[in-house]
């Protein structure tokens, strides 16, 4: 039986998701393209994935920890805590900007070939993920350092790392997807994205702990930012029980991420067939 395709205005392909899953090869090859191309013609290559989080953490530790003197929780190694925040934040921020750029950046494909368009934003996250994994390796020498310095040991919380990675991925995907669709029509959003990222860097507990603000009256509002829950949670997994698990940021984060992902996928599906007319 040959497959039958009906092309009509506003028709959602019944087998869209089947087609999407069948395109896994395209998913991987696009991801591989982005990763291979990333450090072409650089002398340091993948070392950049290590250098960036180290330098960022160092300057943040200097500014927030030394100059501003903001404390972390009792028993939490401050350098490690800063580094953890930077790692997960950079994963989120890189993914967000990749996803939001994925449709316009691949306009040569979008205007010439059909494939489930969702492949583009989903696969574009892989670059940031590889960066994250490379950077994450540095956690091991930091653990050794704090073990010998103060007998610090990580614990069972480590197994929850994938949960917070998945949340960061979904948050970047959800928000990025909205931006990617808007970006097709209005390139203003390409200008806006770096600004959102810069703004978010200070609005989220990347370089400080919520311990400094948890007594403020507006603290529940602060927790409505879904990225707060991700960073708090990721930090909790690495701190061997010294950092508290913050339900107050975790629950809003999960709810908001789910809402954003579902609505942005629906929005994307509604618009994807007309991308080429506006790109």
């Amino acid at each position, binding site marked *: 039986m040959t497959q039958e395709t009906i092309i009509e205005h506003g028709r959602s392909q019944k087998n869209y998701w089947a087609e999407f899953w069948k395109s896994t090869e395209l998913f991987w090859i696009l991801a591989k*393209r982005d990763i291979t191309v990333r450090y072409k013609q650089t002398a340091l290559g993948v070392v950049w994935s290590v250098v960036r989080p180290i330098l960022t953490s160092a300057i943040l530790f200097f500014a927030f920890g030394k100059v501003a003197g903001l404390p972390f929780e009792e028993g939490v190694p401050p350098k490690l805590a800063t580094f953890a925040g930077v790692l997960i934040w950079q994963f989120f921020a890189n993914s967000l900007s990749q996803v939001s750029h994925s449709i316009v950046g691949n306009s040569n494909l979008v205007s010439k070939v059909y494939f489930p368009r969702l492949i583009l934003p989903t696969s574009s996250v892989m670059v940031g993920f590889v960066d994250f994994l490379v950077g994450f390796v540095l956690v091991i020498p930091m653990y050794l350092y704090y073990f010998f310095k103060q007998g610090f040991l990580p614990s069972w919380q480590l197994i929850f790392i994938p949960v917070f990675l998945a949340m960061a991925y979904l948050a970047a995907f959800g928000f990025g997807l909205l931006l990617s669709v808007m970006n097709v029509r*209005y390139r*203003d959003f390409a200008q806006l994205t770096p600004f959102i990222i810069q703004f978010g860097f200070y609005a989220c507990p990347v370089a400080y702990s919520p311990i400094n603000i948890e007594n403020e009256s507006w603290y529940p509002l602060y927790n409505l930012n879904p990225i707060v829950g991700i960073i708090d949670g990721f930090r909790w997994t690495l701190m061997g029980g010294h950092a508290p698990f913050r339900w107050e940021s975790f629950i809003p984060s999960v709810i908001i991420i789910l809402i954003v992902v579902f609505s942005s996928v629906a929005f994307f599906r509604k618009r994807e067939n007309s991308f080429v007319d506006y790109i």
Partner: protein
Amino acid sequence: MNAIQVENISKRYFIDHQKKNGGPSGLKESLVTGIQSLFGSKPKESTRSEKEEFWALKDVSFDVAQGDRIGIVGHNGAGKSTMLKVLSRITEPTTGRVTVRGRIASLLEVGTGFHQELTGRENIFLNGAILGMKQAEIKQHFDEIVSFAGIEKFLDTPVKRYSSGMFVRLGFAIAAHLEPEILIIDEVLAVGDAEFQRKCLGKMKDVSDSGRTILFVSHNLTAVQSLCNRAVFMNRGQMVAVGETGQIITDYMSKINQTSLIREWLTPEQAPGNDQVRIRKIELVPQFEVGQTRIDVRTPVKLRFEFWNFVKNAKLNLSMHFNSMTGETIFNLASPQIDANPGLITGEVELPGNFLNDGTYTITMMIVKDAATVLYHLQESVMFEIDDYRGGVEWYGKWPGSVRPYFPFTIEQSEEVNV
């Protein structure tokens, strides 16, 4: 059973006309109107953009049977490419419906998604996947693709270092090894040198002989004629006729104007030149035989020129360099000298048929004073293409040389020996 069934397809676009300050319709405009309405004031008339409807396709219907090779012909802007975009699901129709039975692959461009930084090898896998091939299929055809493109030595070189010819050959080679049930092709043969084009056409014939359905859009009517059994003639978004290729092409040719190879400047202010002379017009007029629409090696061509002279009592003549695509001058034609006064100077010269070989040529025009000083010269004043034509069966390969004279030959067997 029909492979493709097109029913009343229309496609509408909106063209934005800015009423005021012609900037692009952007977020700003939406924000401004939004904010104005927030404060209760009505959005001003002047910030609204006026949208004009444009139907790129209007009520097009036709059927493509399994194994048909359909050519789509028509002018620029006739809606051919929009049609292909709808059929290949790149954009959706505004109304109407298409039913496609079978795996479809579309080739609207050679080397879609090639990444400059990646090597030939990496790009084969990337492009193949984008066109819908499985990695296993690509591996299976890998060696054929490489040898068809002739890039064995450059497999591990980034494609940004490829010549444009290599780039195109690689792109086509990958696409040629696609094995869909329905193949959609747009104008890809318009690139590459003549020999490679012939190779591509041959490959496409192989594909169609294997019983697959092909939709082919091209300006190259010879290609359409040799490849397709049926054709669709489109004009201004509507389907004018569908039927047997020969018939449709005759219809089409009777409707298109003579190829105009002309450059013309209406006033001396716009015209190229200087305060002594300015060129008004250069026109190539092919002397077609009945039914012919493109210049081929047999076609005599008239070259007409007009220029303004602003110098009194000047002894002027005109010189034309005929250049090949590689930039060499093949020959020079010089007009007789004229005693010119301010005003318009016109003239013409005829190149006989059976003279230039097939290829693309440009003409450099020079206006010379006193047989010694070049007053003005215009490079690439016109560019024209001469198609190949073989009457007999002398040779199938590329015809070498810059000129292709047709001199009377005699050849005979003067003696026969029994062996």
